[in-house]
Structures are given as structure tokens and as C-alpha cells.
């Protein structure tokens, strides 16, 4: 076989080493860095894009959760406000009622007291008038010059009548 003719070995080995060396140098210097960096750049870009997408997704999820939480908080707040308003209205109503009742009670009490007072006053008046009347009667009796016994009897009778009318 022609490939085993050793006459060409030395030149083939020499030129192979030289050619390979040149190719290695040229590719190492001018081709591989570009291709490898392009590959790495693309890989990085893809990875970054994926990372970013993931980040956006989690951000969106977080926001959704936040909104949901806010929404439910708002709902709760509205409920609380409503409940508070209801409670307040009820309280106002109760208060009003209580106040009115108390007022009515007070008015009633006042009236009763007034009546009582008037009654006392009237009694007092009656008593005063009666005494005056009795004195007047007594005077008249005295003026008619009754006997002492008569005077006493009249006075007794008058007092008795007074106390009777008073006790009634």
C-alpha cells in the first residue's frame, strides 16, 4: 500500500505538525473566542430572560396576592364600618329612647311633686284660713259675751270639726 512507503513519512509528519499547529493557533486566537463568547452570551441571555420571566411571574403573583389581601381587607373594613354604623344607630336609638323615657319620667315626677306641693300648700292655706276663721268666730263669740264655758265649748267644737275635716 502506498501509505506504508516510509519515504514520505518525515515530510508528512513535519507538515502535519506545522499545519495543525497553525490551525490550532489561528482558531484559538481568532475563531474560538468569538464563537464561544457568542454561545455563552446567548446562553446567558436565555438564562437571563428566563430568570426575568420567572421574576415577573413571581412579582405578578405577589401583586395578585397583595390585591386580594387588600380587597378582602377592604371588604372586612366595609363590613366593620357597616356594623359600627348599625351599632351606633342602635345606640343612638336606645339612648334617645332612654332619654325620652327619663324625660317623661322626670316630667311625671315633677308634676307629681308639684301636685303634692300644691296640695300641701292648699292644706296649709286651709289650715291658716280655718284658724283665722276660728279666731274670727271666737272673736264674734267673745263679742257676744258668751260665757267662758260657752266660749270653750265653741272653740272645742270648732277644733274638733277642723281636725275631723283635716283627717278626712
Amino acid at each position, binding site marked *: 500500500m502506498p501509505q506504508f512507503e516510509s519515504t514520505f513519512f*518525515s515530510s508528512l*509528519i513535519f507538515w*502535519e505538525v506545522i499545519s*495543525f499547529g497553525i490551525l*490550532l493557533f489561528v*482558531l484559538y486566537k481568532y*475563531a474560538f473566542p468569538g464563537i464561544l463568547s457568542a454561545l455563552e452570551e446567548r446562553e446567558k441571555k436565555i438564562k437571563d430572560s428566563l430568570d426575568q420571566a420567572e421574576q415577573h411571574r413571581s412579582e405578578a403573583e405577589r401583586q395578585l396576592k397583595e390585591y386580594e389581601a387588600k380587597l378582602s381587607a377592604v371588604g372586612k373594613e366595609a363590613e366593620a364600618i357597616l356594623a359600627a354604623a348599625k351599632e351606633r344607630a342602635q345606640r343612638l336609638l336606645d339612648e334617645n329612647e332612654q332619654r325620652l323615657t327619663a324625660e317623661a319620667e322626670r316630667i311625671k315626677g315633677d308634676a307629681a311633686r308639684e301636685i303634692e306641693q300644691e296640695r300641701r300648700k292648699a292644706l296649709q292655706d286651709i289650715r291658716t284660713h280655718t284658724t283665722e276663721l276660728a279666731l274670727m268666730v271666737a272673736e264674734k263669740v267673745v263679742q257676744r259675751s258668751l260665757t267662758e264655758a260657752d266660749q270653750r265649748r265653741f272653740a272645742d267644737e270648732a277644733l274638733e270639726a277642723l281636725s275631723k275635716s283635716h283627717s278626712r
Partner: protein
Amino acid sequence: MEESPLHQFELHHWIPLSIGGVDISINKAVIFMWIVIAVAAVLMIMAGSSRKLVPGKLQSLAEMMVEFIRNMILDTMGKDGMRFFPFVATLFLFILFSNYIGLIPGTYTVTSQIVVTAVFSFFVYGVSLVIGFWLHGVKYFGILVPPGTPGWLVPLMIPIEIISQIARPVSLAVRLFANMTAGHVMIAVLSGLTISGGLLIGWLPLVVSIGVYLLEFLLIAFIQAYIFTILTCVYLGDAFHLHGHEEQAH
């Protein structure tokens, strides 16, 4: 007169040259080495200089090859192996372009020279030995005893493993050389038959030769470059991770 199917591999001193008594004459194979490195360098530099985020055809192809080699290295040697990326990639491209350019009629297949493939394979094997002893010292002799070998088998295993170690560079060189030579011989033989068979029967070897050519073009040229490169990675990887100890440690 019938031409020998081996005629295509013959070389002639085209430009006689010598350094210190060593013959370095220029012949057809040398010329095609130059063509191979020129084509490979130009294509790769063009591909490497565009550096677009969305690559064109050439850039895609170059990136595919680079990625392919990178994965080969990462699978067999791990991240440390990327130091050998320029060497391994250049080796792959040199062999690949040699195989493909050799398939163009009238050219010369550089890798059909046993001495060319042998230089590569022995260099690769030599580098693996250097790395092995550099990293592991005397313990690298442990490569002759596969892990898990029972003690009484060791005297038997060592000679077998020595043979297997010697077979590595030899088989690496012979595989590529033999595949390239056989393919080209077959095409030459079938083409010869086509001519000598004449119109009546000549079409049959023609069809078969076209089939063989397509096989060579679509599969063998690439696969042989791939096999040579992956075995290079495997041998270098063995030197890196003696018995995979380091891999387990990771």
C-alpha cells in the same frame, strides 16, 4: 489498462525540500493539509466574527460544532477538560475537513495516510499519559488494575491492561486510516468496474458506488471524525479521573 484502486493514495515529491537532512518535500497530501487548515480557519473565523445573537447559517453550523465538541468534553472530562477545548476542537475540525475535502473527486484525503492519523493518536495518547502522571503520580499505574479486580486476578489483569493501553493509540490511528482508505478504495474499485463493465452491466457498480459515496459523505466522514475526537476525550478523561475517583468525590 486498469488503474490500481490504490493509485489515488500514491504521493510524489512535487517540491523537494529538506531541513538538516530530513526530507520535508511538498507533496499532494501536504498541499491538501494546507487547503484543509485554510478552509477550516476561514470558515470558523467567519463564523466567529459575526457573533450575532440570532445566528446565520454559517454561525449556526460553527456553533453547533463547537457546542457538540464542548458537550463531548464536558461529558467525558468535566469542566476541567475545557482547557483542552482548543486542542480537541482543532483536532475534530482538522479530521472532519480532511475527510470531507478528501471526498471531492481529484483531491487527496489527508487522513487516509496512516502516518497522519498515527501522529494524532500517539500525540493524544502521550498527552493523556503526561496528564495522568502529572495529576496522579505513580498512582497512575493503577490504570492497569481496573477497580474491583480481585487480588488474585491482578497478575493476569496487568498484562491485559497493558495490551489494551497499547491498543488505544494503535486502534485510534488504524481506525481512521482504515475507514478512509477502505471507503476510497471501494469507490475506486466500483468506479473501475463501472468503466470496465460497459453499458450493459456497468450501471450496477455505478449505483453502488454512488451509494457508497453518499454513505461516506453523510455518515463515515463525520462519524470517524467524531469517534476519533470522542476517544481522545475519553483517554484524556481517564487520565483526569483515574478510575472515576475524582468524579465520585465531586
